[in-house]
């Protein structure tokens, strides 16, 4: 029973981690508090839905089209809309406020386009909605796949960030955007790249989520909220942090639902969130506040 709850929880946590990793890059490195993040996820889910229904394309192959598209679009959004804000803002606080307002507008643009094109109904298709047995626990194959992809993407990004030169540059910008130019890092370029990478991750999350969740054009805000909780819990800008925080939330929610009361899952989520904020204000894996 406990083992089954743990496995179910890890699989759910994989989803949370998956949707949070992109936001942690966008917020942690580019300092853009992207309120349209959940809507990018939904847009990608619609993309997967269309490819699946019209072209009969397996969503895993759909990833190969939608993830680069998410990268390019986010790159353009940053270059056209957010870069001017980043340039004129003197400090991080100002940029955060400006980006909240700007992306709040973007949220309605994306939602509006989705509503016009797809209407407001619920969208869903069935892909790998079959049970697979892991250690005696029946789990939905598509959720297990989401978990595996979350670990794969998270692990891969972690290696890129820690083992490569540009990963070092990204981390430098995340930690000390003021000092990074002193060692020849183009902060603008790195921020733009990190934002686009975050968009690509959001797109990946959207495609994977569309395999097992019913979504509608107006469902983005739920994902933004969940991602935000995970990002702040894990330490802003920290990929392993987002992964760990997502998994912890998934496991705790499942344990609470199984052994205490399903009505308390939301309360448990925010209790842990609060505990982390009180005990480690900069997040689980965050550095101490500078």
């Amino acid at each position, binding site marked *: 029973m406990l083992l*089954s*709850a743990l496995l*179910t*929880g890890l*699989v*759910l946590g994989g*989803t949370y981690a998956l949707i949070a990793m992109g936001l942690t890059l966008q917020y942690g490195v580019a300092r853009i508090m992207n309120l349209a993040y959940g809507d990018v996820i939904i847009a990608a889910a619609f993309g997967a839905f269309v490819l699946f229904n019209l072209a009969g394309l397996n969503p895993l192959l759909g990833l190969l089209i939608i993830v680069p598209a998410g990268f390019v679009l986010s790159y353009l959004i940053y270059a056209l809309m957010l870069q001017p804000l980043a340039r004129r803002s003197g400090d991080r606080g100002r940029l955060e406020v400006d980006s909240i307002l700007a992306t709040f507008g973007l949220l*309605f643009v994306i*939602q*509006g386009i989705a*509503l016009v094109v797809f*209407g*407001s*109904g*619920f*969208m*869903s298709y*069935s892909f790998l*909605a*079959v*049970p697979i047995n892991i250690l005696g*626990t*029946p*789990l*939905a194959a598509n*959720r297990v796949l989401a978990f595996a992809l979350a670990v794969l993407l998270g692990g891969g990004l972690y290696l890129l960030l820690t083992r490569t030169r540009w990963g070092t540059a990204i981390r430098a910008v995340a930690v000390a955007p003021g000092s990074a130019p002193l060692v020849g890092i183009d902060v603008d370029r790195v921020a733009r790249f990190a934002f686009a990478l975050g968009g690509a991750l959001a797109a990946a999350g959207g495609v994977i989520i569309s395999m*097992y*969740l*019913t*979504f*509608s*054009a*107006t*469902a983005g*805000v*739920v994902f933004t909220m969940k991602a935000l909780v995970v990002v702040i819990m894990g330490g802003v800008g920290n990929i392993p942090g987002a992964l760990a925080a997502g998994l912890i939330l998934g496991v705790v*929610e*499942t344990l609470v*639902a*199984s052994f205490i*009361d*399903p*009505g308390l*899952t*939301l309360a448990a989520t925010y209790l842990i969130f609060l505990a982390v904020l009180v005990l480690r204000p900069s997040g689980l894996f965050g550095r101490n506040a500078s």
Partner: protein
Amino acid sequence: MTTYGRRTILRGIGASAIAATALRSLPAFAQDRKAVRIGYAISKTGANAAGAGITTTPNYLLWVKDVNDAGGIKLSKLGVQLPIEVTEYDDRSSAEETVRAIERLATQDKVDFILPTWGTGPNLASGPSFDKFGYPQLAATAVTDMAPQVAQRWKKSFWLLGGGHDYANALVQLLVKQRDAGKINNKVAIISVADGFGIDLSKAATPAFKDAGFELVYDKSYPLDTSDFAPLLNEIAGLGADTFAAFSYPPDTFAITQQAVVANFNPKVFYLGVGTAFPVYPKIAGPNHNNVMGIGGIDPDSPDIEAYFKRHTELIGEAPDSWASAVTYSSLQILHQAIERVGDIDRDAVASEISTGEFDTILGKLKLKDNQLWSLWTVGQWQDGKFVGLSHTEREGAREPIVPKPNWTAA
């Protein structure tokens, strides 16, 4: 420069006030009217957009098209037949925005009639505004046990979708028959979403099940926006209940179905809340949608309903939902016939006609009692691709429930 004395001004004000009152009480001149102006505020964006987009907006569009194609609304007292002209606002799923839009429709746009928004909360929230400006409110998508009281308070409000008790009691009665026939055991598992409708239904269902002698082996609520039902269903699957009832919202309704298939949880009665009657449900559940029960239903043998489904599908590209859609469309037919019987834009007379008259609708002849509709489908079941009504608050059910539901087939 002319100076007016105080008396002249006062006299002027008085005269114009009298003139204004006199003009108001005169029927509008036929040549002044080009159309019957209908306004509404509906959730085109935000959390309610999905529900409104399935149940309410398509029916407004269809009704306006149907009426205008037939030449419009006949106003016999003015001797004209006028088309409908629509003023539409997006309430962005916010009750405050709904109220503001209704005030605007009443005071700025001066529309002739206002159609209600979608959902229980927004309809209750906008009740006082409809009342204040004297517009009839035909709440077709509000499920509330408070309907008798609010209909008393706001005399021109009409509550057409029953209360939580009606749905819960109908389900329990239906299950008692199944139990007495030896088709299901005595154990019931309930889950409910911790939000308006789910709370209402579970509050009514829990005592009703107990009074009927059922054993509730599981009865818990889950928070709104829960997406993962594995822990709940894994636990319930081991409790031996033949009846599973989820008082759920979409998209929970869909997620619960998918998870039940994954967990191979096969109760003999599988009952879900809002969303079961949506046309998208069979697409989501695939072959497994058959024999799932839920809220609502239609009479599959009614030619009127069949024609309505056909017209709806042609205009919207999708069939209506098999619960509140037909009620919504019927409410518009009621409004239309009431206006034509009065023969003029007289909102008081129209409201009183709605509350006393009998109307021909796609649901058959309807007559309201205490400003509420009682002729309602409460429990339905997917049978052969249609969500047919099993229980009806005022008539006998048209179809027999199929129990037990066959086992799920893996997609």
